[in-house]
């Protein structure tokens, strides 16, 4: 969450000043979103690999 808020500050600083005091969107939000998605999918794939069945299929114990 802290990294998110820094991204937020960065996003606000990078945006053009509108002069009317608005919360500005920007690439910071976009990269945060795609980053979270890729990280979550990669971590889950890793967890599936770590939990993979040790005994080969078809062989009886």
């Amino acid at each position, binding site marked *: 969450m802290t990294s998110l808020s820094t991204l937020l500050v960065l996003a606000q600083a990078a945006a053009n000043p*509108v002069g*009317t*005091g608005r919360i500005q969107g920007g690439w910071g939000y976009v990269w945060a979103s795609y980053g979270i998605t890729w990280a979550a999918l990669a971590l889950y794939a890793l967890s599936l690999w770590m939990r993979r069945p040790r005994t080969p299929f078809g062989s009886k114990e």
Partner: protein
Amino acid sequence: MTPALRNRLVAVVALLVAGSGLAFVAFGNIGDNLVYYWSPSELLSNGEKAYSATIRLGGVVQPGSIQWNAQHTTLEFRVADGPKPEAQSVLVRSTETPPQMFREKIGVVVEGTYDRSGVFSSNRLMVNHSNEYRPPKEGEAPRQWQETLSENTTAAATGAK
């Protein structure tokens, strides 16, 4: 009773419970009691009930009603039932920084309290987005058209009522 029969019975009961639960939510008018926000006309007609409790008010920003104070710390605008000038509206005083899409005629939901002087003091300002997504027009930067528009309305300080 065999386990197989018991399981089937359990399934039927669970499906009945789930189905009636869903039907209750879908057709039980619970939306009437648990509304996310009130419209301006509902707020105005509710009288006493609307005062002092924290409530949400939703509607459209009335054209020509956006007004900042000199230091840009307080924002005033009117939330109306619809974009037409004659629609019923409520004056909102917000201390929150509005999101980038805030402008005239856009849907907003504000959270706060309504007092007897007829002012809705909001500490949470949210903008509603439609389900439409379009690229900028030819030769136009995204959001550019909107910035020029909002500058104009900031200068025009006219309360609509």
